């Protein structure tokens, strides 16, 4: 009985917050938007950065290899219980929902902020949890601390601290035009936001 009352109260409260004169911001959804995007619009847009790191097979990987493709870039670490795996799952879900043309051209690049623990093997094993059903496998990158710092600086994200455990939660989405017009932060509907915006920055949209 009390449960029913509690639920009713929650429903009423929810009704108030969306229809009231002074809406209460829920998560990130009421933040200002720029343009057609559901994520955080970037004005001015950020150019696709140039940096070279090492992929999970030990080969050099230049981020410019992703040029011309919609690309999601995220910095994090694998020994992360909370935001990092949730964010990667959100990204994977958003890519999986795309039409085949967008899905296959979308690149996802994960750069570790924990260079001590995240070897190529550790990153590869972690990423396979997310991209197994996707046509284009996620790219995992590591490097020296100086290289990782330089990559974060090039991407205009706040440099990670505490051995990489305190890091920017931003997911940057670069378009086929090689600019990031939008970025994302962890929220209940991050996946829906990315899924909405991906077609807008794909080749079909910008040509």
């Amino acid at each position, binding site marked *: *009985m*009390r*449960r029913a009352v*509690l639920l009713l109260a929650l429903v009423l409260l929810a009704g108030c917050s969306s229809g009231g004169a002074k809406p209460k911001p829920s998560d990130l959804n009421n933040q200002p938007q720029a343009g057609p995007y559901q994520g955080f619009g970037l004005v001015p847009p950020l150019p696709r950065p140039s940096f070279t790191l090492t992929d999970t097979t030990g080969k050099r990987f230049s981020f410019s290899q992703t040029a011309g493709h919609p690309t999601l870039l995220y910095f994090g670490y*694998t*020994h*992360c*219980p*909370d*935001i990092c*795996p*949730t*964010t*990667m*799952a959100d990204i*994977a*879900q958003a890519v*999986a929902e795309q039409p085949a043309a967008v899905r296959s051209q979308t690149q996802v690049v994960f750069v570790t902020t924990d260079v001590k623990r995240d070897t190529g093997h550790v990153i590869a*094993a*972690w*990423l396979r*949890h*997310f991209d197994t059903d996707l046509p284009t496998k996620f790219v995992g990158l590591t490097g020296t601390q100086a290289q990782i710092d330089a990559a974060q600086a090039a991407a205009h994200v706040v440099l990670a601290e505490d051995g990489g455990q*305190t890091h920017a*939660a931003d997911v940057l989405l670069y378009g086929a035009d090689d600019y990031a017009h939008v970025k994302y*932060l*962890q*929220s*209940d509907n991050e996946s829906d936001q990315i899924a909405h915006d991906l077609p807008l920055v794909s080749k079909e949209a910008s040509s």
Partner: protein
Amino acid sequence: MNRLRPSAFVAAAVAVVGFAGLIRGAVPQAVSGGLGGAATDPIVVSGAYVREPASPDVAAAYFTVYNTTGTDDTLISVASGAGESAALMIEDASGGMQESAAGLRIPAHSSVTLKPGKGHVMIEHLVGTLRPGQYVNLELDFANAGPVNVSAPVIAINAEPPR
């Protein structure tokens, strides 16, 4: 409750009723991970889940805590059978995640939700692989309500959290 005053008998009676409620509530809760307690429970935990971890040795548990009483309560410690250590991690003022030293306050007649980016129970040194369909046992210890047992289902890595 070191000295027995007349009111202590009332409190003790309430406590007995409360514990009985917890035991009753533990049965459906263990099955569904959803709203568990009877109406008399001071603390009700719902929507508990653990996302299947991508890392071999660390996982996070999330849930909503309802304080049904008229007195603020505090989640002071957590324990889990799924790993060697468990810690309550709460978003700090700068947006980072810190182990909560003072515990998590649950205001009277209110709820607090631990969700990605806001807070979680970090379970480290997992004793085995966690797979969807399994359950993770949590013991949440509250300053007033005492220990509350929660059985959190492991959801697939790309699954929507239970509501």
